[in-house]
């Protein structure tokens, strides 16, 4: 039986939906669709798209590789300063991206706290390189994986992990067969959001890694630059980003809503 929805809730929901959907619809209306294919296949756009995919996928993988163990530590281990650590690792979500970029420069730049050592002893320079763009994207997107995975760990009973250990499972085996499968839905959701965040990253990237075609100029940076000379082309290029993002988010919708939809 269909349930009647309370009117005030429906009105608020509709307003919320309009606020979020309207700018994207407006972009689609303004986009020069006649030039769309030409824009998409132009050399600058193709390079930027390829780089965007490379950077965002790598950043997502790194976010999972480092973020999941960190989330597990935050959920399971008891140690001094845990709540401070949790606040710190989630900070990039609320930090203005430009500030994140300045922080990355201060830490990993050529004259940064740690970057000077990296450069002198290992010959690794992150600023103005694709690796730097990946670091910037990872910095802003890993918290989303951590938040999702930690919620997952907290929602699952620690006794499953203990039982696996008691039954003689080695840590590696227990992680593969018990720990990870239990948080898989939350993890997939977190990874999808992290990927989306990495794909749209602008401020930290341009501040830390700069803006150079083929090296650090991802789609958002290319959109920004094209806005200076060709606003219509910029809109066409941003539609590429919108379409790719919607495609992936729709494909992952079951994961993101935790399998309820």
């Amino acid at each position, binding site marked *: 039986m269909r349930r009647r929805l309370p009117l005030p809730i429906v009105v608020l929901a509709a307003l919320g939906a309009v606020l979020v959907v309207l700018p994207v619809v407006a972009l689609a209306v303004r986009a020069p669709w006649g030039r769309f294919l030409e824009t998409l296949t132009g050399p600058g756009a193709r390079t930027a798209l390829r780089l965007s995919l490379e950077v965002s996928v790598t950043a997502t993988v790194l976010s999972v590789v480092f973020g999941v163990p960190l989330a597990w530590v935050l959920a399971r281990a008891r140690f001094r300063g845990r709540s401070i650590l949790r606040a710190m690792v989630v900070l990039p979500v609320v930090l203005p991206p430009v500030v994140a970029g300045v922080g990355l420069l201060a830490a990993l730049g*050529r004259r940064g706290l740690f970057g000077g050592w990296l450069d002198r002893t290992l010959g690794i320079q992150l600023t103005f390189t694709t690796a730097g763009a990946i670091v910037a994207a990872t910095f802003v997107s890993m918290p989303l994986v951590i938040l999702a995975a930690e919620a997952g760990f907290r929602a699952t009973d620690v006794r499953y992990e203990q039982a696996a250990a008691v039954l003689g499972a080695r840590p590696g085996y227990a992680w593969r067969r018990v720990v990870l499968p239990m948080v898989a839905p939350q993890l997939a959701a977190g990874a999808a959001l992290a990927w989306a965040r990495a794909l749209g990253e602008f401020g930290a990237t341009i501040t830390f890694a700069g803006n150079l075609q083929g090296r650090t100029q991802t789609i958002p940076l290319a959109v920004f*630059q094209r806005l200076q000379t060709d606003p219509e082309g910029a809109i066409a290029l941003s539609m590429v980003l919108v379409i790719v993002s919607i495609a992936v988010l729709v494909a992952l919708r079951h994961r993101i809503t935790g399998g309820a939809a």
Partner: protein
Amino acid sequence: MKRLAILALASVLIAGCSSSAGGSGRSTTELTVFAASSLVAAFTQLGADFQDVHPDVKVVFNFGSSTDLANQISSEGTADVFASASGSAMDVVAKEPGVRDRADFATNHLVIITPSDNPAHVVSLDSLTSPMAIVIGAEGVPVGDYTRQMLDAQGIEHAVLTNVVSNEPDDASIVAKVQSGEVDAGIVYTSDIPITAGDLHAVEIPARFNITATYPIAVVTGSEHPSEAHAFLKFVLGDHGQVVLDSHGFGPPPG
């Protein structure tokens, strides 16, 4: 010292505002000025000085890349005055929604900046063709277009662009990247230097190689405060305005 002066000025202004509000109950006019980001220091000072002379006007600035600002004004038309770092950005606004009293008020030149220890030993434009990390303005941003124009005239555009590690959105971010020592050199306007001279080394570019950036200012058609906007224009073009602009590294308008 400078900070103290600003603080003192600010407190005087605040005191001035509250006393005038309490005294006569006179309403203040908000004058919105869109200005190129290279004008931040000069116009912030001019705005404060203008308010001293016109206590009933509050000058509100929106600083940004001239091209971005021009596009914003064309689509939103929320500015009373537009001060641009290039004629072409002003042309955009002149077309839509239109401008009045357009006049050139300053000129600017390009200069090479390096970190204070000049790690790549830059002494001239030609030095920039040796291997090093350089940042310049992005294409379409006035400082970036002027830079390319100048390099092209010297026949070294390709060689220098090979060393460019980033095309920056505005002069302030070029200065910031050079200041931080992340790159060996950058090209900005001379007006970007005095504010931050401490940790920067400037390498001047001789006039015969340099280009002249001319800054136009105008009242935007549709401004709700045309007389205040016109007064601000006259203030910038007047003696005091020119002295302040000069102290911030700008040259006089051409002609």
